[in-house]
C-alpha cells in the first residue's frame, strides 16, 4: 500500500534564476502523473525497444566485459573511444557524410549535444532560430541558457525558407547564434525538409554567416521514398547531431556531434566540465552490438514496425477524426502533427482526454511563445496498432464533443470558422 505523505523540498527557494525559464507545464505535469490501467499513451516518443533482441545486447555486453573489461570499467577519453568513433564514421558514410573519427565526439545521447551546444554558444538574450514547432527537449536544453528563441513556420516541405529569409533580413548578418533544424521526420511535425529547401537553407546560412545545427535522430527510420542527403553531406560547416537511441536503444545514452574543428574543440572543453567523459561501458557494448549484420535486420524490423504503426494511426485518423482536423503524413520517424481549428485549445482539452483514457502532447509545448494551442503531437512509435486505433477513437470523441460546442456558435453566426481562439 502506498502513502499520500508529502516530502517537501527544503531547498525550493535556493535554486538559480535560470531554472525559472525551464519550468515544465503545470497542466502537462498534472496529467502525466494521472494514470489509469487502460490509459493509451500517444504522447511519449519512446522507441519500441522490445524489438531489440536482448540476447544480442547481453552478448555484446558480456563480450565487452570479457575482452575489454578494464577499459569498460575505467574513465575514457572525453571525445569517446576511437573504436566507437570509427563505427560512427562508418554509419555516417552510409548516409553520405565522409568524416574522420577526429571530426566528432561522443555525447550522452544527442540531448547532451544540444545542451553542450547551447552552453558553448548562448549568452542570455542571444537569438536562436528554430522550426516552429520544434523538439521540446531542445527548447528545454536551450532555455537554461536564457536565449531569445525565434521560430520559423513549416509546411509539408519543412522550414519555410521565404519566412526564414524574412527573419534573417530583420536580424542581419550573424544576427543569430545558430539555426536549429530537424530536417528528417521532424519532431513534432513529422515533415521532412525537401532537397531544394536544404540547399536554400545552406545558402542563407552562408549569406548571413550563421551556423546550422542539424539534429537527425530519425533519419534512418524511413518507411518509403528515397533517402535524402543530410545537410552535413552538402556542407562541411554544418554541426550535426546523431544518436544511437533510435537505431539501437536510448538506454545506452549514446549520441554524437560533428562540427568544424574549432567549434568541436570548444564543445569538448564544455563536455569535459560536464562529465569528464561518456560511459565507456556503453560505448564498448555498442561497438560490439554493431559488429556483424544483425543490427541491420533489427533496424529493418524496427522500421517496418513503425511503418505499420504509422499506417494504423493514419487509418484511424481518417476513420475517426472530424473533417475539421488536418494532420501530417510522415514518411518516417515517430510523430504525426494534428492541427485543429484555430479556436480549439488542446491544453484545456487534455483533461477531458485523460478522463477518457488517452493522452497526447499539446502543441504549445513545442513552441517557446505559447503558439500551437490548437495543435497536438501524436506518437505512433510505441503503442500497438490496435491500441493506436482505440486511442484515436477515444480522442476523436473528445474532439467531437468540443467541436459540437464550437459548431453551435458557428451555426448561430456567433463565430467565424477561421477565427483565432481567445488568448
Amino acid at each position, binding site marked *: 500500500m502506498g502513502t*499520500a505523505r508529502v516530502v517537501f523540498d527544503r531547498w525550493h527557494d535556493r535554486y538559480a534564476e535560470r531554472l525559472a525559464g525551464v519550468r515544465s507545464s503545470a497542466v502537462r505535469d498534472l496529467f502525466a502523473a494521472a494514470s489509469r490501467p487502460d490509459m493509451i499513451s500517444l504522447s511519449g516518443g519512446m522507441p519500441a525497444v522490445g524489438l531489440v533482441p536482448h540476447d544480442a545486447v547481453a552478448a555484446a555486453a558480456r563480450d565487452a566485459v570479457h575482452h575489454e573489461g578494464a577499459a569498460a570499467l575505467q574513465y575514457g577519453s572525453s571525445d569517446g573511444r576511437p573504436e566507437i568513433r570509427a563505427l560512427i564514421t562508418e554509419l555516417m558514410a552510409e548516409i553520405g557524410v565522409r568524416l574522420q573519427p577526429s571530426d566528432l565526439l561522443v555525447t550522452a545521447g544527442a540531448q547532451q549535444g544540444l545542451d553542450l551546444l547551447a552552453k558553448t554558444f548562448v549568452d542570455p538574450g542571444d537569438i536562436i532560430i528554430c522550426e516552429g514547432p520544434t523538439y521540446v527537449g531542445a527548447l528545454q536544453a536551450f532555455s537554461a541558457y536564457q536565449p531569445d528563441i525565434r521560430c520559423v513556420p513549416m509546411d509539408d516541405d519543412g522550414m519555410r525558407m521565404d519566412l526564414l529569409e524574412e527573419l534573417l533580413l530583420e536580424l542581419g548578418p550573424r544576427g543569430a547564434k545558430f539555426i536549429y533544424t530537424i530536417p528528417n521526420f521532424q519532431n513534432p511535425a513529422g515533415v521532412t525538409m525537401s532537397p531544394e529547401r536544404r540547399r536554400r537553407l545552406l545558402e542563407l546560412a552562408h549569406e548571413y554567416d550563421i551556423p546550422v545545427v542539424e539534429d537527425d535522430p530519425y533519419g534512418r527510420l524511413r518507411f518509403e521514398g528515397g533517402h535524402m542527403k543530410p545537410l552535413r553531406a552538402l556542407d562541411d560547416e554544418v554541426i550535426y547531431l546523431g544518436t544511437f537511441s533510435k537505431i539501437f536503444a536510448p538506454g545506452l545514452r549514446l549520441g554524437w556531434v560533428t562540427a568544424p574543428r574549432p567549434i568541436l574543440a570548444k564543445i569538448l572543453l564544455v563536455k569535459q566540465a560536464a562529465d569528464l567523459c561518456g560511459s565507456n561501458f556503453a560505448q564498448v557494448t555498442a561497438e560490439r552490438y554493431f559488429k556483424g549484420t544483425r543490427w541491420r535486420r533489427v533496424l529493418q524490423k524496427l522500421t517496418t514496425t513503425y511503418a505499420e504503426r504509422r499506417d494504423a494511426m493514419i487509418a484511424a485518423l481518417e476513420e475517426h477524426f472530424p473533417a475539421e482536423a488536418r494532420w501530417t503524413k510522415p514518411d518516417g520517424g515517430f510523430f504525426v502533427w494534428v492541427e485543429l481549428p484555430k479556436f480549439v*485549445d488542446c491544453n484545456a482539452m487534455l483533461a477531458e482526454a485523460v478522463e477518457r483514457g488517452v493522452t497526447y502532447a499539446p502543441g504549445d509545448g513545442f513552441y517557446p511563445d505559447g503558439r500551437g494551442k490548437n495543435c497536438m503531437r501524436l506518437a505512433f512509435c510505441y503503442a500497438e496498432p490496435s491500441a493506436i486505433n482505440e486511442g484515436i477513437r477515444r480522442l476523436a470523441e473528445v474532439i467531437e464533443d*468540443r467541436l459540437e460546442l464550437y459548431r453551435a456558435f458557428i451555426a448561430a453566426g*456567433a463565430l467565424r470558422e477561421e477565427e483565432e481562439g481567445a488568448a
Partner: protein
Amino acid sequence: MREKIAVLMGGRSLEREVSLASGRRVTDALTAAGYRVLPLDVTADLVATIRAERPDAAYIALHGKYGEDGTIQELLEFLGVPYTGPGVVSCTLSWDKSVTKHMLAEKGLPTPAWITLTSDAFKEMGAATALDLIPAAVGGFPVAVKPSRQGSALGMTKVDSAEGLAEALLDALSYDTSALVEKWVDGVELAVSVVGDGDSLTVLPPVEIAPKEGLYDFSARMSADDVDFFAPARITAEQTAEVVRVAREVHEALDCRDVSRVDMMLDIHGRVHVLECNTSPGMTETSLLPMAAEAAGTTFTEVVSAIIEAALARKDSGT
C-alpha cells in the same frame, strides 16, 4: 502530545502547484505551533493513509476542484475527520460563482449584473443565437467572461465588444461546462479575508490588488512581480467599514466558517461589488490572506492555529 493534523494539499486540480505551496507554508506554521503535522498529497492513497494515521483534524490547503467544491469535505465527513473551513453545502455553493451570485442577490448583497450559460444550452438549445442579448442583460461592455467553477482566474477574459464574446465563452467553457458573463467593474480590486464565525468572526484588513499593467490574470496572480499589493488597502475609513461589513455579510450569507476570502471591487462611486467567495484561500508567500493577517498585526502561525483550533473544537463537540 499535541494533536495530529493532516494537511491536505496538491491533488489533481489545475491549482496543484499553488496548493503545494500553501500546504508547505501551513505545514511549517502548524509545526512551529507545536502540532504533530502530517502533510498529505491528495492521491489514490489518501483514504488509506488517513485511516492508518487517524489524524485529529485535517487542514484543507487544497485549491480548486475537489478541494473547494465539497468533494474533500464530503469525504472527510464520511471518515469522521473534522476539517478546516466551510462545510459541504457552503463549499458547494461558493465554488460555483453563478450560484454564489444568485445567493448574494437574493440576500440583497451587491454583485455585478451577470448571466450564466452552460455548454448544453449552446449545444442543445441554440443559446449562441442570443449572444446579441447579452450586453443589455448585463448593462453593456466591457464584461468579464469566466468559467463558473474554476479558481485563480483560469479561463477568464475581459471582453470590450461583441466581437470577442464568442471566443471568450468558448475559452471559459474549456474549463467548465458553465460560463458566466458579468458586467465589468472598474475601480479598486480588494480581497477581504474573514476568519472565524459567530462571535469569533474577524474581518482582516482589506488587501488592495493593483495590477502593474492590464488585467490581473492567472500568470500575474501566480507571480507577485506583476502586481502591487497594498495592505491595508488605500481606501477611506468609511469605505473600509463598508467593505468589511459586506465581507462579513457574504461570509454569513454563504454560511461560511473558519475562513473565507471575499473578492470584490470598489467602484469609483465608492460602491462595493462582490465577485466571489473563496472557501480555501491561498496561503502561499504571495497570497492575500497572509498579507491581510500581517497588516492586522497577527502572525501567519496565529491565523493558521486559530483555523485549526476551530476544526478541533468541532471534534470535541462531536459536530
